[in-house]
């Protein structure tokens, strides 16, 4: 029941993200999503490895809920762009497509459950829906910063999927993934800064003449 509520909360953050128009609000929602995801191991894992779980959870919450939003907000402040996400399709259409993706995720979740992994449909569907939302955001938003957010949501989805399906991931691997994501966000923040210095905008549609 509590676990169900957490998964529903994660799905709702995705839906809000699809409908929200402000970059700063989107950053905040992705931060909330990351933090909720960090707490998930407590509810999903066996209690005998409490120390390790605690360490990873604190690290995840600190990185995804604190450091990433800080880095992204700093990038947003420095590039002086308009604060809207500039979608290729409207927000209502995004939400409608989101409902479609949600249905697809639940259908796929049911199919994967049937393989016999011993996890609930809702958790699998949530992870899948997070991946779909992330991909959709990367495709349908024009600003480079939204694409970083889409990438983060995609990564959140993969993290959740891994957490559910492979119960015993070695903690070194999890640490490695976290470090990779951290470096990615860091580099993307710097890249956005450089792009905006060179072009006065971060609209990826207008960057066609970058190719040699």
């Amino acid at each position, binding site marked *: 029941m509590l676990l*169900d509520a957490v998964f*529903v909360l994660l799905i709702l953050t995705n839906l809000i993200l699809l*409908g929200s128009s402000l970059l700063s609000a989107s950053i905040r929602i992705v931060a909330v999503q990351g933090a909720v995801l960090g707490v998930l191991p407590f509810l999903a894992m066996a209690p005998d490895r409490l120390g390790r779980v605690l360490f990873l959870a604190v690290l995840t919450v600190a990185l995804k809920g604190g450091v990433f939003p800080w880095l992204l907000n700093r990038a947003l402040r420095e590039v002086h762009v308009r604060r809207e996400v500039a979608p290729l399709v409207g*927000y*209502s259409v995004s939400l409608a497509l*989101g*409902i479609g993706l*949600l249905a697809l995720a*639940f259908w796929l979740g049911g199919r994967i459950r049937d393989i016999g992994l011993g996890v609930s449909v*809702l958790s699998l569907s949530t992870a899948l829906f997070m991946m779909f939302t992330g991909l959709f955001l990367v495709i349908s938003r024009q600003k480079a910063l939204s694409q970083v957010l889409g990438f983060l949501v995609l990564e959140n989805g993969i993290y959740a999927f891994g957490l559910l399906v492979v119960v015993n991931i070695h903690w070194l691997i999890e640490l490695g993934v976290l470090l990779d994501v951290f470096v990615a966000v860091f580099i993307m923040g710097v890249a956005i800064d450089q792009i905006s210095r060179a072009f006065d905008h971060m609209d990826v549609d207008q960057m066609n003449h970058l190719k040699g």
Partner: protein
Amino acid sequence: MNVVACVQTVLVLLLAPLLPGVINRTKAFFAGRQGPPVLQLYFDLWKLAQKGAVYSRTTTWVFRAGPIVGLAAVLVALFLTPFGKSAAPLAFGGDLILFAYLLGLMRFMTVMAALDTGSSFEGMGASREAFFSMLAEPAFLIGLVAVARVTGSLSLSGMLANVSAETWLRVGPALVLIAAAWMVILLAENSRIPVDDPNTHLELTMIHEVMVLDHGGPDFAAILYGAALKLWVMGALLVSLLIPVHPGVLWKNGLMFLGGMFLLAVGIGVVESIMARLRLARVPQLLMGAMALAALAMMLVLK
């Protein structure tokens, strides 16, 4: 049809105009004003019923039929609406479909009457109403179907009476989502604030108000009374869904239900006081959000 249910429905017929009064008093309280009396709508209805009606020569029978058919439709819908956990007088299996389309018929007649005046102004309101309700109706129906699936009953009275503490423990998140979706639809369908402002007479903001501008006298009284009843029937579904226990005793059920309706009216007043009306372009997004919530609830109960 049992006697108790009929008495309860007559009680609702008398009490329904209180809801807008409570909402207005709540808003007045937030604004630091005295506000109109709680019984204001009764006075208005009495005053309007005394007056004669004026009909433009452009209009046809459609214009005159609009308010009457609308009121009749919502009255029938009221006879399908449970009183808290106790059954409605006309409850039967599958009445949820009839309920949704009775409200649809009411809306259709209001829209037709508005178009019949030949005023471009009213046509604009009619167009908005048709568009927004097109988005609101699926969300409402998906929510109904989800509750029907959870409780295993196809009549409004049966399924809402079956919502118990056990149901809430089993599918709590889904029920919360449905309640949130229904609240948004309730506000949208009854032209309350995030969607429409019941106080304005500006063409840029109005949806529902603009469609009834040409009605006067008894016709307008029918429209106002119908609107109060519509607010009541939609609110009654929401309140019955949220009450998690089935009080066996009659007076306990009545007390809880009427208390719930009072709290709902206060809640609507609070929403109206602390929120601004949304830009018209944002309204479809809000309704699409309600549809997403209802769809998610549906998938949660289907899985």
